C-alpha cells in the first residue's frame, strides 16, 4: 500500500547544511568570516607567539607610522609600538567580548526561557525584573559597576554581561512564547515529555537560530562596550586592549592621529566582521528566505 513517490525525489539536505549553503552564498558574510579569521589569527599570533611586550618603550613617542623600520604603525605617546599593542590588545578585547556575550547569553536564555515557557506569574515577575535592568542606560550602569568594583577585565566583562542580558532574555522569551504553542511541543507533551525535556530539547533548539544571531551580535556590542569604558578611562590599565589604546591616546589626538585611529579601526573591523557574520547567519536561518 505504499505511496508511489515522485521519481525525482527531493534530495535530502539537513536544515543545518541548508543554512550553511545559504551562508556560503552570502558574499558579505563570507567577507566577514575571512576578515574575522584574519583578525583572530593575528590576535592569536600576538597572544601566544609573539614575545614582544606591548608596554615596552621602543622608540621616540608618537613616531609617525613607518618612521623607523620596525614600527610600521608608529608609536604612541610613550613610544610604545602600536602594532604590538594591536596584536597583544586584541586578545583581551575579544576575550572580554566573548565572555560578556557568554554571560549575556547564559543569563538571558535562562531568564527568557523560564519566563516564556512557564508564563503566568513567573513570566510577569521575570519580565518586571528584566525591565528593571532595561530602564537604566546600559553604559551608565556599566560605568557605575566598573567604578564601584574596580576596573579589571573580569569586572568589565561581568558588568557588560549584567547590563546587556535583558535583550537576549526578551528575545528568548518571545521565541519560547511562540514555539511553546506550536503543535510539536504539544505533541512532545502528548508522548510524555517533561518540562525539562521540552525546554531544553524541544524548544531551545528551535529557538536557537535567532539566539545565535543575537549572541553573535552581542559579541560585537560587548567589544564596543569595552572600548567605550576604556575610552572613558574605566578600562583595565594593566591589560593592553584596543579600547585602552584609544582611551590612553585620546588626549594626544590632535598631534598624532595614528595611535587612536588604528585601534579604532581594529575594533571597527572586528565588530564589522562579527555583525556581517551575524547578518549572514540571520539570513541563513531565516525561514522566510529559505522557502523560495
Amino acid at each position, binding site marked *: 500500500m505504499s505511496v508511489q513517490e515522485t521519481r525525482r525525489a527531493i534530495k535530502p539536505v539537513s536544515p543545518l547544511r541548508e543554512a550553511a549553503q545559504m551562508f556560503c552564498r552570502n558574499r558579505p558574510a563570507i567577507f566577514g568570516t575571512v576578515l574575522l579569521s584574519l583578525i583572530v589569527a593575528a590576535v592569536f599570533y600576538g597572544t601566544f607567539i609573539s614575545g614582544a611586550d606591548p608596554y615596552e618603550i621602543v622608540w621616540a613617542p608618537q613616531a609617525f607610522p613607518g618612521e623607523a623600520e620596525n614600527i610600521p604603525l608608529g608609536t604612541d*605617546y*610613550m613610544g610604545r609600538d602600536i602594532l604590538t599593542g594591536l596584536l597583544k590588545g586584541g586578545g583581551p578585547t575579544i576575550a572580554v567580548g566573548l565572555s560578556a556575550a557568554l554571560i549575556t547569553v547564559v543569563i538571558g536564555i535562562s531568564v527568557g526561557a523560564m519566563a516564556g515557557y512557564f508564563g503566568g506569574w513567573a513570566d510577569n515577575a521575570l519580565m518586571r525584573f528584566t525591565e528593571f535592568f532595561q530602564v537604566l542606560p546600559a553604559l551608565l550602569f556599566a560605568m557605575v559597576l566598573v567604578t564601584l568594583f574596580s576596573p579589571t577585565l573580569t569586572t568589565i566583562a561581568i558588568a557588560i554581561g549584567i547590563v546587556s542580558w535583558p535583550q537576549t532574555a526578551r528575545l528568548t522569551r518571545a521565541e519560547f512564547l511562540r514555539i511553546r504553542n506550536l503543535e510539536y511541543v504539544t505533541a512532545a507533551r502528548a508522548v510524555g515529555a517533561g518540562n525539562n525535556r521540552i525546554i531544553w530539547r524541544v524548544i531551545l533548539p528551535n529557538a536557537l537560530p535567532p539566539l545565535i544571531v543575537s549572541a553573535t551580535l552581542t559579541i560585537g556590542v560587548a567589544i564596543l562596550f569595552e572600548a567605550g569604558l576604556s575610552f572613558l578611562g574605566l578600562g583595565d590599565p594593566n591589560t593592553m586592549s584596543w579600547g585602552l589604546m584609544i582611551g590612553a591616546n585620546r588626549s594626544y589626538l590632535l598631534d598624532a592621529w595614528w595611535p587612536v585611529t588604528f585601534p579604532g579601526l581594529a575594533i571597527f573591523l572586528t565588530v564589522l566582521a562579527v555583525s556581517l557574520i551575524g547578518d549572514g547567519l540571520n539570513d541563513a536561518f531565516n525561514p522566510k528566505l529559505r522557502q523560495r
Partner: protein
Amino acid sequence: HAQDIEPGGSVVVVSTQAPRHLNPAVQSGIATAVPGTQIFASLLKYDENWQPQPYLAESWDVAEDGLSVTITLVEGATFHDGEPITSEDVRFSIMTVRDNHPFQTMFEPVSDVETPDERTAVIKLSKPHPALLLAMSGALLPIIPEHVYGDGQDVQVHPANSAPVGSGPFRLVEFDPGRQITLERYEDFFIEGRPYLDRIVIRIVSDPSSMVLALEAGEADILPFLTASQDIRRLESGEGLAVTNRGYEGIGAINWLAFNTNKAPLDDIRVRQAIAYAIDRDFIVNALHRGVSAPQRGPIVESNPLFNENVEAYDLDLEKATALLDEAGHAPDANGTRFTLTVDYLPGTGEQQQNIAEYLRSQLPKIGIAVEVRASPDFPTWSQRISSFDFDLTMDMVFNWGDPVIGVHRTYLSSNIREGVIWSNTQQYSNDRVDELLEEAAVENDPERRKALYDEFQTIVTDELPVYNINLIPYHTAYDERLGNMPEGIWGLMQSMDEVYWIEQP
C-alpha cells in the same frame, strides 16, 4: 603706561578643573583659586621676585620679635554688595581660614587679630611665623565679608560659597557648576580704573584637545595650567598665541615617586635609592615630557631661593642600583626578578603620573624589580589607598605653595603621619632630626639661618628618600598674544587679573 590702555572686552578662560564652589577660604586648589582670586581680594600680592606687594593692604609691618604683624587697609574698599571692607572682615577672614582651610600651617600660629580701628588689623602670633606674608597673598587668604559668612552657618557648606559677595575686581554673574563661571567687572573696585576687562568667562572643558582647539579657533583666550607636552608644543607654534611657564613658581607643583617607607622591602633606604638610581629623570623630562618640564631634585622647588643645589640628584646608574639591591640582600630569582612592587598613580593627569608609572613598569625590571601598575579609576579610590597606607610605590603630585611651611613640612614631619588624610606624611617617614629642623625653620625669621636649616633638611631627605622627586609639573599658560599684563607673579592666574587688558580687541 596706564593711559595707553583701552579698557573693555571680555576674556574666555578654559580649564579642565571644575570648582566645587568659589570660596578659597575653605577650599584649596586651582579650580577654586582662579575664579576665587578674581572675586576676592587678598591683603598682598607677590611679584615674580617673591616680594610682597600692596593690594588690599596698603602697608604692613612685621614686629621685631616676629610675634605681631600690623596691617593697614586701603581706603574706600567695598564688598560687591557695597558694604565697606573693614579690619573686622580681615580678622574674620584670617580666623575662618585658620579654622577651616586644609593648609593648617598657614595661620596656625595666629593667636588673635586685633582691630584698633576700621583700617588697622594687628595679627598676633604665638611664635614667629616667616611664612605668614606669603600666606596673605593669592588665593590663600581671600578677604570675605563677615556680614555674609558670619551668620552662624557652617562656612564649609555656606550657600554663599557658590554665590559669593566678593571683595575683588570681578563680581560673579553666574556659576553654572561644572560648566561655566561668568564674572563681570566690579565698578567700585578699590583700585581706580581697574579692572580693565569687562568680563571673564571661565569655561570648564572635559577634553584637553577641545580646549586646545578652542584656543586655536579663537573661541577661548586663556588656557592656564596646561601640562601636556604636546599641547604646549602645539600651542607654542600657534599663530597669535603666547605660551609661558611663568607665574607658577608659587605653586611649586612637584611630581614625585613616593615610597611606603614602612613596608618591606621599601623600609630599606638602599632599596629606595636603588630605585632612584634606576630611574632616568632625563628620559622622563626630555622624552616623555618632550623637554617642557624641568627636573626637580629636592623637596623644595628649584626656583625657590630656599632650594639646596647640592642635594644628591640620583642620575641614572643601573650598576649602582643593582649593587645596592644586592647589598640589601635581594637576590634575583631564575627570571631575574628580585621582588615585585605595585605602583599607584593619581588618576587624570596622564603624562605626569600614569605615563611615568608605566615607564617604571618597563624600566625597573632592568634592575630586577617587577612592577605592576595599579590604576585607580578615580581620585577617591587613589586617595583612599594612599592615605590608608595601602601601597608600595605611588606617583604623586604635591604643591609647595610658596613657603615650605605650607607645602613641604606636611610631607616630612613625623607628627603629620595621619592615617586617612591624603597629602599628609603618607610615606610614614620619620626622622627626629628632620622634625627638629623643620620646627626651627618654621619660626626662624632670619633668612640666612632659615636657609641653612632647610639646606640640611634637604640633604637628609634626599638621602633617605621618602620620596624621589622627579620633575616640576610644567604648568604653562597659553593665551592670546593681544592680551597685555598677563599676571606674572608667583601665583599666575591664581591672582587677580585686574591689570589684564586687550592690547587689541579680537
